[in-house]
Every structure is written in C-alpha cells, then in structure tokens.
C-alpha cells in the first residue's frame, strides 16, 4: 500500500492534470477554502492533501471541525470558493452541477454515520440504488459477469448480510450495525474508485465497530477502492494505513455550523 504524506508545499500550479488512469492520487487538494457565507470565516481551509489509490485514510477530529464539509467538497456536492479539488484527476470546481452529480454517481460511494438508508426500500433495493442513478456502475456490475442483483447479493453476503430473506427485509427492521453494513454494501456497488465514510462506526459498540471495519476494509481491498474515513475516535488510528489530525490539516479557527447527518444527537 502506497502512502502519500501531507505536502503543505504543494501549490495549485503543481497539481497534475493527468487522466484518472495516469495518476496514483485519487484525491488532490490544494489551497481549498470553503465557507457557508462570504461574510463568515472559512470552515475548510486546506493547503494541500493527497490521497493515493487504494489508500485507507483516517481523518480524525472533533465534531463540528469541518470533516463532513470536506467530504461534501470531495463528493462534489459542495463547491469550494477557491483552490483546487481534484478527484480521479478531474477538477470538480470546473464541472457543471449536473456533471458533478453524474461524476459522484459514477465514481464515489458514501457511508454516513446514521440514517444511511431509504426507509421505504428493502435491503436489496437500497444496495442497488447507486446503479439506478449511474449507468456506469450498472455496467461495471454487469462486466463482472453478474446482474446488479447478484452483485448486491454477493456484497451483502461478504458483509454477513446474505440470504434471500434478509435481502427482502425492510431496512427499518434492521439493527444499527446491520444498517451500516447495508450502507457499506451500497457504497461499494459498481466498484466506485472512492469511498467516503462519515463516522459510520460512532453508533456501534467496540466489538461491532472492529468487525464492521474489518469487513469494510476487506471489501474496499477487493473492489480496489480508496477509503477516506472521518471520525472523532482516536482508537481507530492503528487500523488505517494513515491517520491525519484534521486540526493540523484544516487551518481554520473556531467550529463549523455544520452538523453531519444524524449527528445532532451527539
């Protein structure tokens, strides 16, 4: 596993413009500034960040420090006011809104802390959802010689959620741990290059947390996906290829007004 250290010296002009296949860095950030309102101080101010292909990166930091906002920038849901956000060699800031949405649908899987799933869909329907919005991910499933449903069943099976009955269950009937595994399976459908995980283990106890991470790592490795995992839990650090303290990376003072999905209860 190749590690890419933080390079605070990397400037915007040094960012390479290679196509996705030609670079080892899945994520390249430089001089990124984002604030919710022009009058407010930035909640994200990152001079440089590189994440290599296949890397498992832990971004550790307290709640409200801007970690979730960074993930939204990486997913192309939010747009930085300045700087460069390159994912798989594509400059997200240069893409139109619809193109960014399509890019996210095609290349990025997301796991939230809680409320990951659509409550009125079954386990299988939730897992297959990305393929409904991305023909590329659907084609990738089919290229593996299996149907979308078969790929979903295989992923669920690998995450110990296999079985016909389980796949037809309503997600509201599942425990939190089971729901997180379904969310992991969904994020990996159609082999996205990048998986963004926003504190997905914070609702789990220590045993379940370790088991979930083990399953997630295994499946990311199998799908050759890069994992960026944000958490406030320092105990997770030894499990990752690399850990970054978000406070060191994000050069801003004060706290973000952002609350991650489902994190209001914290």
């Amino acid at each position, binding site marked *: 596993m190749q590690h890419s250290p933080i390079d605070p010296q990397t400037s915007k002009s040094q960012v390479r413009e290679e196509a996705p296949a030609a670079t080892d860095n899945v994520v390249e950030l430089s001089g990124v500034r984002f604030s919710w309102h022009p009058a407010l101080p930035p909640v994200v101010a990152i001079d440089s960040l590189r994440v290599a292909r296949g890397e498992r990166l832990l971004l550790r930091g307290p709640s409200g420090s801007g970690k979730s906002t960074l993930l939204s920038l990486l997913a192309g849901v939010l747009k930085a006011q300045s700087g460069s956000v390159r994912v798989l060699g594509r400059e997200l800031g240069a893409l139109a809104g619809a193109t960014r949405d*399509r890019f996210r649908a095609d290349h990025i899987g997301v796991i939230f802390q809680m*409320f990951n799933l*659509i*409550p009125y869909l079954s386990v299988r329907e939730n897992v297959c959802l990305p393929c409904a919005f991305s023909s590329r991910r659907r084609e990738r499933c089919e290229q593996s010689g299996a149907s979308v449903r078969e790929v979903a069943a295989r992923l669920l099976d690998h995450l110990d959620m296999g079985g016909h009955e389980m796949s037809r269950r309503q997600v509201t009937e599942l425990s939190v741990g089971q729901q997180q595994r379904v969310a992991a399976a969904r994020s990996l459908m159609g082999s996205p290059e990048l998986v963004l995980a926003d504190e997905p283990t914070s609702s789990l106890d220590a045993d379940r947390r370790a088991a979930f991470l083990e399953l997630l790592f295994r499946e990311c490795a199998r799908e050759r996906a890069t994992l960026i995992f944000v958490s406030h839990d320092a105990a997770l650090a030894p499990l990752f290829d690399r850990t970054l303290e978000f406070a060191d990376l994000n050069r801003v003072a004060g706290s973000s007004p952002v*609350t991650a999905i489902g994190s209001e209860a914290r």
Partner: protein
Amino acid sequence: MILPLAIKSVRNRRFTAGLTVLSIALSVALLLGVERIRQESRETFASSVSGTDLIVGARSSPVHLLLSSVFRIGNATNNVSWESYRRIAALPEVAWTIPLSLGDSHRGFHVLGTTQDYFDHYRFGRDRKLELAQGERFADANGTVLGAEVAAALGYRLGQQIVIAHGSGDVAFALHKDHPFRVVGILARTGTPVDRAIHVSLEGMDAVHAAESAEGGGDPLAAAMRNVMQREMQSIGRDDHDRDHDHGEHGASANEAQKRTITAFLVGLKSRGGALFFQRKVNESREEPLTAILPGATLLEVWDIVAGAEKTLIAISALVVVMGLAGMLIALLTSLSERRREMAVLRAVGARPWHVFALLLGEATFLTLLGIALGVAALYLGLDAGQPWLEQRLGLFVALRWPSVTEFGLMMLVAVSGVLIGLIPAYRIYRLSLADGMTIRI
C-alpha cells in the same frame, strides 16, 4: 426510477397519504356531483318541453305557468275554460294541442287528466314519442296509464284498481272512492315528469268529480261534511284541488264537457316560425285572460333565477376542493423536515436536484390523480346507489354516463391545481437539497 421511488415513498406514509387522497376524492366527488345534478336537472327540464311550441294557461307569470303545468312544481293560480281551449285549438296555425288537467293525486303522485293527443303528440328528449312498456292507452273514463316511476315505486301492475284523491299533497284527505280506475297501461321510462304521473282521460276526471258531486248533492249531511273538510284543507294549505277545478262546476249533468275547465294546454304549431305571433295573439285574447309562453325562453328565465344558487353551490364545492388540495400541501410540507435526510442520501448516491424536485412533484401528482380517480368512482357508486332516491324525491333521472366535457374540464382543473400546488414543496425540498448537500444544516 423516480416514479417507483415516489410510489414507494407514498406507500411508506400510507396513512397520511390515504387521508390526503380521501379528502381530495370526497371533494372531487362533491364538485362533480353538484355539476352532474346541475346538468341533469337542466337536461331533464329541457327534455320535458322539447317538442312543445307553446304552453297556454290562465293569466299568471310565465315561470309559474311552466313550472306548474309541465313540472308540477307549485299550483296553477287559475284554470282555463274548455271553450277557450277549443277556440284556440281550432285556430288554423295550430297543428295539435294537449289539454292538461291537474289537481288530484294518488299516494303522492300527480294525476293528469288529458286526451289521446297526449300519447300522439307529446315529445321528450330529442323528438321521442311516449311508448307503452306494457298494456295500452286508456280508451274510456275508467282506464289509467301509469308513468314508469309510479308503477315501479308503488308496485302496480296491469288490471289493478286505484282510487285517486282530492288535492295534490302526499296525504289524502278525501278519496274519490266512487270512481276507481283500472291500470290499462304502463309507460316506458322517459326521465321526465311523465314518469311520475298517473294519466287518466278528461272524461275519467269528469266522472270522478261528477260521482262525488252526485253523492254530496244527494246527502245533505255528506255535503256539509265535504264543505267542512274542504275548508279545513284550504286553511292548512293542503287543498290545491279547487284552484284547479271546482266540483260544483263539473256537476253530474250530461253536458259535462261544456262545464269542464283545464289547468293548461300544450300547443304544437304547424310552423314554429309563427310562435311569437301566436303567443301575442293568445296573450291579447279578449275572451279570457290567458298567458301563452314559449317553453324554451321561459326555461331560460328559470335558469336565470336559479343561476345564483347554482353558482353558490359550485363555488362551495370548489372551495372544498381547495381545502382538499391545501390538506395535501400541508401534509407534504410537514413531511419535508423528516425527508431532508432521505433526500441527502439520494443526493449522495447520485440523485440530481431535479430528481429530488421530481420526487415531490411526482408524489403530489400521484396523490391528486388517485384522489380524482377515487372521487369519480365514489361519485358513480353514489349516483348508482342514490338514483332511486333522486328520482323519487327530486324527479331527477341521473344517467350513469361518461363524464361530460365540463366534468372532464373540472377534473383537469383539479389535476393541474394539484400539480401546481406540488410545485411548492418540490421547490422547497429542491432548495434545501441544494443547500444541504450531503449534510443537513440545522
């Protein structure tokens, strides 16, 4: 992709969605029901006078004459003498006439004294003649031909004997028992007041009253009793009979027809173009103060009178629909806060903002269309179940036909309103999803 999601989302909130659909369905059923009854009552009225060029009665307001003679609503203020009727019927412009003598009843149904001309010349709907479903026309003073609704409601069959009563109220105060009638024919259904009438010959009508007068005249005590009873009935407004024809005038004499009076008569002209001229001629007649009306023109006056009430009813029904749609808007808006997370998840897996917009709009459209469909179904079930009641109580025959252009227009209006109302929550969740992205800012 969005439609199945919208349907599953609605199914997930089936209770509140069900209430929304129910309120839309009931309001649509009410709106279409009011419109249907409005149309049907107009059609029933228009159909009843379709083949008649003029109606002639004693001097009164045209609307009153039309309503009392053809629709049996209210009572004629005075009668027309037989001489005047014969004189006008003999005019060269006249093709046919139908005399109408009202005032008696049988178990709540009006008895109509007339002649064979009624069966030959009366037209309803689009130039349709009266047809007998069973039996034949009355040939003498003892026969009666029942309207379809009378036979159905009272369960009468051919050959049965009936006794008519004095006055036109539901409760009979004095029965003409001395001259029973035998049912000789039952008319096919027309969807007009004909269905609710008991038809006898003018001679039969004369005979009834002649028999009664004879009986009353022969027995001073009975005559005194009859007078007391008539005064009683007049004082409580039950007796319409004497305004239509006076028993003393009928008498038991052989020259009965000469003393006869009728309520009104329908006139068919040889040339419709001369109707206005003929109308003036009758109205200016010096022999007897008469009123001749053109039924179509007078019907327009009737619609003018009821137009205000119709508009009020439609406006109230429209307001009920607005309330139903407002209920949907409130239900959708209150669901938005909990659905922001759902939208964030959808956005994270690749849904575009317009997907989120379409999801809410699709839901509003789905609920509105389902509400309209159920409303139409409820209307038809209600009309099917309530048809006998409507016909019996209001004399309205509401056919189960396809919705009219106006009704389709109303449905389209409700559907478009539902979609437009759906734009509000759809736009709101669209803005929220753009602002929220993958995270929700509280």
